[in-house]
């Protein structure tokens, strides 16, 4: 090869995924290329336009927008566009416009497919670009499947092994026993008026309520059934099912969808060691009487988290499981406090905010919680009781490992222990007269979730918050402004922007610059669209239906969130395994090139959707 073309080969060698090709193949590539030049602002490709080449940017930069004009990404030197066209019979999918004067190398479609056919790593990189690429990267990571972990990612629906066996409410106990023998099942669903659920009977009921009580076999099944049984939704995770069964000490759980039974799951469906350990931990906490003892259980959370992540749990599952233990701890402390202080004088609800509220805790979590009372609350009469309650719980949590964070955002703070009416006034103030500084601090309260107590109190508050926030453009604009203060650590040329100086020199802050920007985005879209969810995944899934964000944008953000979160969790697990205390500061070099590329993709998705956000809500000035 001549020396001039070697220069092009050298350029290709420096860029992914061409670097994955054998040297002799790269060296044969320049001869197949064509160079083209586009001045800044040139529309290079439009949707459905014929595109018979892959474009490799040699110098310059481009931006990609979907047919609706939504910004999807920015590309710079060494990156490719026209990829979608390669998989759509040479029809471009998006708008590509040059942002700078750009020189591109064009690889003909046929050569592209020759390479993709011969080199799986090359094909893999391109088969799914942008958000798609991220998604497939996640699949590749997740594919290290572990049977023990099925519970974390498997939905209840998939566990329903056989058709439901049910019996009419008019049947006798004898009928029920015979049917259970014939069908070889350990429980029956009792139905009335067709498929309406009346109750459930299990072999344990036959033992406890028939034999032990010497009841007549001719008595109706309804006399021994458990009416209105605890049930679960097919979309819930298997883990939730197991947790429900452990908490309620039951072994059968009907699966209901829209009030109709669609199946039954039993403990036998659910035996899996990893999840059991979390469930046993929660069970154990609920029996302990001393915060110090609970602390020894919670001390195992890093170990549990490591098991989960190593077994391939998603960050959503891991967050859910870890948060469950914080919830169990909180609930137990409240029970202990009530036992010590006497029953509460007025109904109350204990609420968690921040990461516990969102069910997104990791190996390190600070506590964010608050108390709300029924309006019958009087500070003079009841203030002391609840102050003592809050002190007991918050100090207990702190001792156990859920330490106090900055900003004093706990129920220990008098400000965050108040009646429903006062909470409502506070939220009104935050929404109607938003002040950026106080709102930034209070945003943890926009991720509230009731943990213990009288939940309807919370439901009323939430309904009002959501409806007010939905209509208030000023409030939304302030949230957007606040969200913009969380920068994604990506420079213009898609290089990582690291922390400079100090203890975490040359590291990435995966929490403040990675996870939180997405949490902010999800919160804004959720509040603006009247969505109740607080979990970031749930919020993003819910807002797909609304126009404030494109469906693709929401999907990409979901993937980005999972990827950044799991990268953060893996980082923590690595630290735990090395015997260090976990943190959120990652050295990019500790990642593989593959992970780095995907992390950049994830950051650029966030960056783009932050920009889109300004368009959708911010800068309205109204």
């Amino acid at each position, binding site marked *: 090869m001549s020396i001039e073309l070697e220069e092009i080969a050298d350029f290709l060698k420096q860029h992914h995924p061409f670097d994955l090709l054998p040297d002799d193949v790269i060296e044969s590539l320049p001869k*197949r290329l064509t160079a083209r030049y586009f001045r800044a602002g040139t529309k290079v490709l439009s949707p459905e336009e014929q595109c018979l080449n892959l474009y490799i940017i040699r110098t310059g930069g481009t931006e990609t927008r979907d047919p609706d004009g939504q910004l999807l990404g920015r590309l710079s030197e060494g990156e490719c566009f026209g990829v979608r066209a390669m998989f759509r019979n040479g029809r471009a999918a998006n708008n590509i416009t040059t942002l700078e004067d750009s020189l591109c190398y064009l690889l003909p479609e046929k050569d592209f497919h020759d390479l993709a056919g011969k080199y799986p790593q090359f094909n893999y990189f391109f088969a799914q670009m942008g958000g798609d690429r991220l998604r497939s990267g996640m699949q590749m990571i997740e594919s290290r499947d572990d049977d023990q972990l099925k519970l974390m990612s498997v939905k209840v629906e998939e566990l329903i092994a056989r058709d439901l066996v049910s019996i009419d409410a008019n049947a006798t106990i004898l009928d029920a026993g015979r049917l259970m023998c014939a069908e070889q099942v350990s429980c029956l669903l009792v139905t009335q008026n067709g498929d309406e659920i009346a109750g459930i009977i299990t072999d344990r009921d036959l033992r406890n309520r028939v034999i032990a009580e010497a009841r007549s076999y001719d008595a109706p099944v309804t006399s021994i059934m458990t009416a209105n049984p605890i049930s679960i939704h097919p979309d819930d995770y298997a883990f939730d099912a197991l947790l429900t069964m452990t908490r309620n000490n039951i072994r059968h759980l009907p699966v209901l969808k829209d009030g109709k039974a669609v199946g039954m799951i039993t403990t036998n469906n659910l035996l899996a060691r990893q999840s059991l350990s979390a469930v046993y931990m929660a069970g154990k906490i609920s029996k302990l009487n001393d915060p110090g003892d609970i602390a020894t259980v919670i001390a195992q959370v890093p170990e549990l988290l490591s098991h989960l992540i190593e077994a391939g749990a998603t960050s959503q599952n891991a967050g859910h499981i870890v948060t469950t233990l914080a919830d169990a701890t909180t609930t137990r402390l409240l029970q202990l406090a009530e036992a010590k202080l006497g029953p509460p004088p007025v109904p109350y609800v204990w609420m968690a905010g921040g990461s516990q509220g969102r069910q997104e805790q990791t190996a390190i979590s600070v506590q964010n919680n608050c108390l709300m009372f029924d309006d019958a609350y009087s500070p003079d009469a009841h203030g002391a009781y609840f102050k003592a309650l809050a002190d007991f719980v918050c100090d207990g949590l702190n001792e156990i490992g859920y330490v106090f964070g900055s900003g004093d955002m706990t129920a220990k703070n008098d400000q965050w222990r108040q009646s429903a009416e006062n909470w409502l006034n506070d939220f009104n103030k935050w929404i109607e007269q938003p002040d950026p500084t106080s709102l930034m601090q209070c945003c943890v309260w926009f991720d509230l979730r009731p943990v213990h107590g009288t939940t309807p109190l919370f439901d009323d508050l939430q309904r009002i918050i959501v409806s007010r926030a939905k209509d208030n453009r000023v409030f939304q604009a302030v949230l957007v402004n606040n969200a913009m203060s969380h920068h994604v650590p990506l420079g213009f040329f898609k290089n990582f922007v690291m922390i400079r100086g100090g203890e975490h020199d040359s590291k990435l802050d995966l929490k403040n610059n990675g996870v939180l920007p997405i949490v902010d985005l999800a919160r804004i879209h959720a509040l603006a669209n009247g969505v109740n969810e607080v979990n970031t995944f749930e919020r993003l899934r819910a807002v797909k239906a609304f126009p404030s964000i494109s469906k693709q944008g929401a999907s990409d953000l979901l993937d980005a969130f999972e990827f950044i979160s799991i990268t953060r969790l893996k980082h923590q697990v690595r630290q735990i395994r090395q015997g260090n205390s976990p943190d959120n500061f990652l050295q990019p070099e500790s990642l593989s090139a593959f992970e780095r590329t995907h992390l950049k993709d994830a950051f650029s998705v966030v960056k783009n959707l932050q920009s889109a956000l300004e368009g959708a809500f911010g800068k309205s000035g109204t």
Partner: protein
Amino acid sequence: MGLREKIADSQFYRDFVQRRATGALRSYYDVPAADPARPIMDTEFIVLDLETTGLDPKRDEIVSLGWVIIRQLGVDFSSCEHILVRPTKQLKESSVIVHRIFDSDVADAPNIKVALEHLLPQMAGRVLVAHHAPIELGFLGQACKQAFGARLQIPTVDTLVLGLRALHRQGKPFKSGALKLDSLRRSHNLPPFRAHNALSNAIAASGLFLAQVSKRDPKGTLELRRVLR
């Protein structure tokens, strides 16, 4: 353009030289020249650079040629060629220093006539692009006259002239050296290039030409005549 060039580019002159041309040059003239009224987009260009033993076409000789073809305003790298030429005289030290081509390198190389027989079919019907074209035209013209009895006529774009016109249009003062190939490339955000030989220079000029056309002709409808020298 001076009167001399006008005559050199005229149909009258073309008819004149065509009648006297022999061999490969004759075949070259049998293909009609590129039509100056056609859009640039539909015109094919051959971007060429050559290295010589000096600057005087009458006394000095070509030692290497490099070229690449542009079609549909895309540089087709599969068309790249680089050939060394064996001069009739021994290489001068001063020129060896410039292009680092030694006598031993060109000992087995074809002579200029054979080289032209290879190059001329590539030029037929196309437009020549060169940075500071008088050098290329002068040496090729002289070589053709000696080998095939007539001079070479070809529609030509000079990227240096295009660069000069653009600077004039902008009305800004410019420094000496601003019209060098590398400076002009940089001004269009093109990557730095290593000037190894005639082909690397030709490729560098091809990128510059694309950039210049894209600035001059955003819509891609400009006629060829607008960029000819």
